[in-house]
């Protein structure tokens, strides 16, 4: 029997060290280190099967780690039973108890812990998710979005130190999903509980989280604020999984002050040294990947061959395809050097769309480019992103 005193009452950061989980020969989570500051909204983002749920289940106590440890503040909870942890879960398909009404669903955890103030807390939690009026209904009588909010209320009412959400919005349609994202964010700010939100929707992770960890094949590829991750990806996987990137193989030709100089079949570029991913060697003669986001690229009609920008960082090519999407037009440009570069151009003026076959010059500000390790696959994470976008 779990009494209130059995639950470790701790606060603090969630610290995961060397966490590993193997199923037989298969390593689902591989030596994972993570620090989630108390009270933050943390998103764990990654493609299907990369080990997100497994990680979450180990934090919840539903799965036992093969190695490593999990701690909240100073308390090691690696081997505590689920009901002893100050952690609650919002399950992927809500897992509301169908035989209990909404009120009893929300009261479930409180009653098991013999809480003395069930009624007030339940009503507060229902108020938080704005669903007091469905108190006496059964879960089957609620819409998907309502069920989602009840699942949230049922977990939050226990005031855990950490709340785990496994793709909580996965079953909702796009519009409701956007609405619930705002709602979740509001509730998190209001209650101040650490949220760990698992998703494979990169837009969702970026709009909601203070910190995003991108996970791939059992390891964290990169962790940081959404802007950091988007503007300065450290790996090809992150560059492609979070939005889209053009990753062009190039060779380092030297250095000029704070800039790294490079060249490929299309010409010469420069990238600030500060924009080189950690651990990448940019010694002369090294092969690297130069990355530029499609929306950072400026496209103009190629009229006279001679009026190229003086700072370099341009390529010339022919429009291979143009996709008008309303806000912007997405081009694929085949460069002279044989690369294909994606470009998003805002539709500022009517009728200014380049037709396929048009010769164009693409240029970008050196400060927007970044350099990744040349041994990486330039397409890593790109296909997965399409898949995840549903």
């Amino acid at each position: 029997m779990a009494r209130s005193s059995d639950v470790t009452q701790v606060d603090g950061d969630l610290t995961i060290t060397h966490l590993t989980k193997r199923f037989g020969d298969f390593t689902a989570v591989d030596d994972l280190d993570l620090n989630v500051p108390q009270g933050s909204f943390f998103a764990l983002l990654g493609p299907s099967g990369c080990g997100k749920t497994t990680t979450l289940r180990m934090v919840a106590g539903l799965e036992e780690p093969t190695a490593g440890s999990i701690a909240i503040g100073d308390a090691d909870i690696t081997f505590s039973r689920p009901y002893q942890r100050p952690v609650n879960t919002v399950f992927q398909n809500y897992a509301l108890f169908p035989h209990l009404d909404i009120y009893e669903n929300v009261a479930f955890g409180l009653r098991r812990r013999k809480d003395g103030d069930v009624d007030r807390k339940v009503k507060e939690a229902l108020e938080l998710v704005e669903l007091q009026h469905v108190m006496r209904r059964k879960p089957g009588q609620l819409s998907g979005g309502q069920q989602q909010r009840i699942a949230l209320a049922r977990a939050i009412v226990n005031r855990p130190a950490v709340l785990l959400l496994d793709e909580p919005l996965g079953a909702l349609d796009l519009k409701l999903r956007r609405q619930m994202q705002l709602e979740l964010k509001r509730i998190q700010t209001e209650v101040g509980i650490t949220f760990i939100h698992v998703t494979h929707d990169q837009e969702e992770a970026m709009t909601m989280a203070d910190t995003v960890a991108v996970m791939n094949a059992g390891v964290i590829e990169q962790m940081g604020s959404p802007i950091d991750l988007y503007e300065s990806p450290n790996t090809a996987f992150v560059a492609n999984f979070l939005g889209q990137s053009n990753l062009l193989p190039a060779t380092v030709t030297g250095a000029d002050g704070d800039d790294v100089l490079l060249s490929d079949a299309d010409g010469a570029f420069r990238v600030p040294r500060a924009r080189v991913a950690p651990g990448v060697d940019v010694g002369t003669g090294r092969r690297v990947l130069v990355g530029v986001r499609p929306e950072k690229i400026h496209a103009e009609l190629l009229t006279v061959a001679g009026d190229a920008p003086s700072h370099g960082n341009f390529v010339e090519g022919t429009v291979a395809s143009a996709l008008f999407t309303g806000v912007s037009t997405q081009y694929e440009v085949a460069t002279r050097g044989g690369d294909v570069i994606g470009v998003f151009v805002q539709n500022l003026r009517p009728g200014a769309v380049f037709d396929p076959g048009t010769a164009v010059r693409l240029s970008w500000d050196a400060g927007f480019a970044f350099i990744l390790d040349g041994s990486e696959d330039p397409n890593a994470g790109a296909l997965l992103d399409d898949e995840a976008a549903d």
Partner: protein
Amino acid sequence: MSIAAALGDVQRDNLQGSPQPQRRGHFVPYLLMLPGLLWLGVFFVVPLVTLFMMSLQTAVPGGEIGEYEQTFHFANYVDVLTDPSYYTPLFRSFIYAACATVLALLIGYPLAYFIAFKSGRFRNLFLIMVIAPFFVSFILRTIAWRQILADEGPVVAAMKWAGFFSDGIGGIYPSAIAVVLGLTYNFLPFMTLPIYASLERVDPKLVEAAGDLYAPGFTGFRKVTLPLSMPGVVAGTLLTFIPATGDYVNAALLGNSKNTMIGNRIDYAFLNTNDYPTAAVLSFVLMACILAVVLVYVRRVGTEDLL
């Protein structure tokens, strides 16, 4: 959870303002019911009416044994209801059936739970084993229980060894215990299978959620799994209790004259004394009693899904 959940779906659809299904083809459900209705009509309503008519007949004056005519003689009911020799067998039937139902529940629920959650890849094998006895005739299986419970049989030997009986005195067959054991055995699959069916539909995620919400192990079972399996328990107990109350084979084969059930009296009236009206009256009295008990039971268990 069948009906309640279905109602929930309907309500939810209405909430979201989805259009009502078109009128076209609204008679199709009735069409689909037709074979079932015909079956019920031919094999339930007609025999029931015939039986009722028979219960109002009286012997043809001066006629042969077993010759009756329709006289709408309602006093047949009074005769039976005021004859105390029927009271004990009727009462006994309910007691035996209730004991057998409780025993079958105690054996059947853990069995169904094991098959549903713990049997892994052997699940189908266990399910086949539950229904395997049906491949052997009911009578043969019941007679086999005579051997099992006989004074020289393994059960008695084991109990003597354990000191329950002193040598020479006591035994199990024939006795009330033997009849109840026979009933339990014969109706066990009817208890196990519905419980299994409802347990199998319990989402393991719900049990996990209960664990997450401080109800691990047995508390989680009591608060989540058990309530969700109640429709199966109700169905199983009814499927066991109702036929067990009317059963006469077990009492005939495993009991003696002190274990007569009402089914045996009906059997006797029908086939030995050819007193068809009395047998018919007894059948209706039994039916009424079972209905009353079942109604009270279902009310008490309070499964809104059934009522």
